[in-house]
Each structure stands twice: as structure tokens, then as C-alpha cells.
């Protein structure tokens, strides 16, 4: 069969046309799919040429997907769809979280023991804890570390809006058996405050478990050696004995934690949340940079780092839990001189 040259040309054209139908790789955005950007030293403004998540934008433009909150907070109503303009701040000028109608506060939740069946206020049932963590996730709270909070208190860096810190005191084994898997499930971390004498006791965490939690991103702070009330001078003690005992509780517990988990321990939760000026002075000399109490309330950027407030989560009522999550203090901060 002989094919005419015209037919040959047409078939060739058809093949070329068909070859353009081969689907292209679309999973990983190629350079041409990246947003069109305009950049200054303070902002990147980009128009999305493709649907893109804030995490992907954070990774590309801020070098760390964990900084996605900077993009989310700057683009409240964005859907991150093709054609949308997104503002990416390269620095946060409002690092104090000050607004016309008030200022940002960071609540710290304080837990102790977890169990399936609880009979004490210091024990949190596993199902209630799981539902509380789900509430945080569903309502877009951002669980931050104590390190981030301290940088905020030092006026170095901003923290995400709706920031929350989770702490677990004493070092009960249930922090590993119950809380750890639930926190991991939601991608949250917490800070453990350990009193060293208790470690490896019957119902206590072991050093191995503490190391494992630290490796998973948890922070570890001191809760003294013996969970001593640092503000109480014993009846048989004179002032010198008292200071010696307190110094030992603070210095030795730090040394033990430093050695056992290879870190420079700088966080302290006062047992019972109690302290006095002497205790704070010894803390500073011993090398701590923060002290946490159990006085209810959030922490603004001007909170003294040795008087950090926390809410003990003792009630099982959802309403009480929600009341512990105040991330904003209303106060009129408008410039009235100008009016």
C-alpha cells in the first residue's frame, strides 16, 4: 500500500499533536509553578499560580515550614488558591502583640498526673485530656515551646496568635504512657518539670523515658530535688540553713538534669508555685532564666520571667478548660493624644 506525501504529513502532525497530551508531573511544584513574587526587605508579596499551602510557602520563602504561622496570621481570610495575593512578612514588627483594642497573652496549661480512672483533682482522665488537645487543634491554637515564650518575654521574637504552652509537673510515669501518645497525635509538645528524687520511683518516669520525650521535642525543666516548698523555712532552720537547703535544691537538681539528659537546664517550676525574693535571687545565680508559678492567667510580653503564670487544669468541665485559654487582654490602646 502506498501512502501519499500529503497523508504522511497529516499523520505526522497528528502524532505531534497527540504527544502534547501526555500528562505532566504535577505533585511537586516546578519553578514555573512557584508564585510570582515581589520582594522588599520587609515583605514578599506573591500571587499564587497554583493552590499552595502556607507550610509550603513558609518552607520556600521563610526557610522553615514551622514558620507557617507568620503567613497564616498575616493573611487571615486567605484560601491559598490560584490567583490569590499572599503577603509574607519577613519580620514581625509587632513582636509584643499590641493592638488598638488590647494585647496578646500566652496561657500556660499545667497538668500533673494522667489516668484512665482518676479520683484526685491532680489526675486528668485520659479521655478528657484527649478531648482538650482536640479542642486546641480544632480551634487553631498553636502549641509553642517555653523557649519561644521566653524569646517573646525577652522582646526578641513574636509568637503566633493563639499561642499556648503545655507543661506537665512532677514526672509521673503517666506523662509517658498517656499524655505523650496523645500529644504526638496532634503534633504538640510539652515541657516536663521533674523533681529528680522521684525519677525511676514506682509511679515515676525513668531517665530513659525522659530522654525519649526530649528527643521528640519536649523540653525538660527542674522542679527541685524533693518537691520542696522553696518559700517555707522549716521551724528548726535558721536563715543560713534555709538558704543552704534552697540552694542545694536548685543547684543540685539542675546538675542532675544537665548530666542525665545532656542539656543546660534553665527552666524551673516552683513546687506548689511558691517562691519569694530570696528564691528568685538564688535561681538567677544558679543559672535559671525562668520560674513558673501556678497563679492563674496568661503571660504578656512584659511579664517578669521569674513570675510566669500558669493555669492548673483541675476541672474536667470543658467550659473551665476554655476559660484557661485566654490569648488576648482587652485594653484600649488607641492614640488619644492625636484625637
Amino acid at each position: 500500500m502506498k501512502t501519499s506525501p500529503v497523508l504522511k504529513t497529516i499523520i505526522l502532525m497528528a502524532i505531534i499533536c497527540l504527544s502534547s497530551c501526555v500528562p505532566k508531573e504535577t505533585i511537586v511544584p516546578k519553578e514555573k509553578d512557584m508564585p510570582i513574587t515581589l520582594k522588599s526587605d520587609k515583605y514578599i508579596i506573591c500571587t499564587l499560580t497554583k493552590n499552595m499551602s502556607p507550610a509550603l510557602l513558609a518552607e520556600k520563602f521563610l526557610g522553615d515550614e514551622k514558620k507557617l504561622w507568620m503567613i497564616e496570621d498575616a493573611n487571615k481570610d486567605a484560601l491559598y488558591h490560584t490567583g490569590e495575593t499572599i503577603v509574607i512578612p519577613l519580620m514581625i514588627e509587632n513582636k509584643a502583640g499590641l493592638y488598638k483594642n488590647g494585647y496578646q497573652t500566652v496561657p500556660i496549661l499545667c497538668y500533673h498526673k494522667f489516668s484512665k480512672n482518676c479520683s484526685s483533682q491532680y489526675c486528668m482522665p485520659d479521655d478528657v485530656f484527649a478531648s482538650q488537645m482536640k479542642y486546641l487543634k480544632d480551634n487553631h491554637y498553636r502549641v509553642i515551646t517555653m523557649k519561644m515564650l521566653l524569646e517573646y518575654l525577652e522582646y526578641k521574637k513574636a509568637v503566633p496568635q493563639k499561642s499556648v504552652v503545655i507543661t506537665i509537673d512532677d514526672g509521673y510515669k503517666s506523662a509517658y504512657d498517656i499524655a505523650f501518645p496523645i500529644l504526638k497525635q496532634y503534633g504538640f509538645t510539652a515541657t516536663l518539670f521533674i523533681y529528680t528524687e522521684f525519677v525511676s520511683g514506682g509511679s515515676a518516669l525513668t531517665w530513659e523515658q525522659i530522654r525519649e520525650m526530649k528527643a521528640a521535642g519536649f523540653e525538660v525543666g527542674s522542679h527541685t530535688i524533693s518537691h520542696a516548698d522553696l518559700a517555707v523555712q522549716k521551724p528548726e532552720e535558721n536563715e543560713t540553713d534555709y538558704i543552704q537547703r534552697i540552694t542545694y535544691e536548685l543547684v543540685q537538681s539542675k546538675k542532675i538534669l544537665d548530666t542525665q539528659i545532656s542539656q543546660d537546664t534553665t527552666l524551673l517550676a516552683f513546687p506548689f508555685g511558691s517562691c519569694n525574693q530570696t528564691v528568685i535571687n538564688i535561681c538567677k545565680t544558679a543559672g535559671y532564666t525562668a520560674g513558673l508559678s501556678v497563679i492563674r492567667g496568661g503571660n504578656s510580653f512584659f511579664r517578669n520571667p521569674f513570675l510566669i503564670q500558669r493555669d492548673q487544669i483541675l476541672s474536667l468541665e470543658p467550659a473551665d478548660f476554655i476559660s484557661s485559654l485566654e490569648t488576648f487582654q482587652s485594653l484600649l490602646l488607641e492614640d488619644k493624644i492625636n484625637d
Partner: protein
Amino acid sequence: MTRQLCICIALVFSLFFIGCVTPVKEPYITMEKDKNNLATEFYEKALNLEHQKEFVEAKKNYELAFTTDPVNKEAEQGILRMTSQLQALAEKHFLKSTLLHKKGKYNEERRSLLISLRLWPEHIKARQALMANENLNIQKYINHNIENGKTRSKIYKTLAIEFFKDQQFNDAIVEFKKVLSANPNDKETMNYISDAYFQMGSTETTQNKLLEALEHFQSALNYNKNCDLCITKLAQTKDLYKEFHYKAGMKSYNEQNLIQAILEWELVQKMDMEYKKITELLEKAKTIQKNIEAIKKSE
């Protein structure tokens, strides 16, 4: 031939229609237009905010306009204008705060400092004043809010009592000791700790863990000096311990296991040198053992 040609042409056209060979959309085409629109949008918003005296937000929008269009002189001037405006206002509020401080109106002073920092976050003096005031208030704060943990230790006491009721005496003692550190004179807690140690000692006696039992009866007595039963149990357990190791030593001695016999009797002697001529028995066993070793060596 003409028919074949028509079919082929129709095929090519249909492929074009279904979109397989449409030219690749070039998003960059709209770039210049978007850029101009955005710059205008940000600039107009900035002007509007400036008009409403929302200088913080106005500055931000001038900066966004300038980011979009770096040659936009008006946006650049807007930034400079807002910067000087905000700095001046921040300074005014800072000065106002110093006056309020002198009048003793500390809450109002703090509010002025916060306004100053909202307007100009790098107002170092405003931040220093804010922090200095917080530091001055530490003692007041401690006295009113923190003090000691007497009240807060009550929750630990509840937990401890629960453990005690569940006969988890070890855990109960751990929690009771926390309570005691906050309230060293709490007699009830001391009695609970004493009881918990006593219960542990009693269980250990039945399990023949006599040394542990002795230690726990002693602790029970330390926390409650009036515990007569502790004194009795301590004495009884000591007797049981001595008799147990005395007999174990006798058994080993009779089985000609002198080394074991010496070990057992030494435990008794450590506790009571006068018990059943234990010193004599030990000397005798040690002499025999020494002689046996000497014979072994000579062989």
C-alpha cells in the same frame, strides 16, 4: 484521497478543540498588570488609613505598596511620613507616662507605655520603664499572689489520702511528703506518713523482709514519736531478725558450711552483740575456719 485528507484535518482540529495542543498558559503575562493593580490598591488603602489616623496600619500598607512598586516615590514618602509621625506620637505617650507615674496613676502610666510601644515597637525607654515597673512590683505580687504553697498543698493531700485508702503506701508517702514540705507542722499528714510506713512494715514482716520492715517501723516512729505500737513492732521485728539469722547460722554450722554460718551470725552480732552468746559462736566458727584454711595451705 480527498476524503482521507478531510478526515485527517478534522482529527487535527478536534485535538485542538479538546485542548491537548492549546498553547501553555503563561501566568507571567498578567504580572505587570497585577503589579500595578496591587501597588495602587495598597497605596490607596494606605492613604485612607492615614486619613483615619491609623498610622501603624497606614505605614504597613505604604510598605506593601513600596514592595510591589519599588520606584513608587509617593509610597516611599508615605513610609517616611508615617515613621516620623509614629515616632513623635510614641514619644508623646512616653512623656505622658512619666507624668502619670509622678501622679501615682500607675495603671494609666502602663497603658501609655503600651500605647507608646504599639506605635513604635523600638521605643527602648518605654520598654525599659514598663519592665522596671514590673520588677518593682515583684514583692507586692509575691505577697499578694504567691506566698507559700500551704493552700495549694491541700490538693496533694487529697491525692495522698486516695493512695493511702487504696493501700498504695509508697505513692501515698511521696505525696504526703510534698504536703509536709509546704506545711511542716501538719500533724495529720505526719500521722498519715507514720501509718503508711507502719502498714508497709507490717506487710514486709509477713513476707519475711525483716530488714525493710525494720527500716519502715523506724520511719513510722520518726514521724510519730507517740506511736507505742511502732516501738513494740520494732522490738519484735528486731527479735525475729536476730532469731532468723541465728538459726540460719546454726543450720549452716551443722552442715559444716562455716563461711555461710559466719555471715549469718555477723548480721546478728551487728544488731545485738549479747544475743545468745553470738560473739563466742562467731569466734569459734572463725577459729575453725582459720585452722581448716591453714591445713589446706600446708597440703
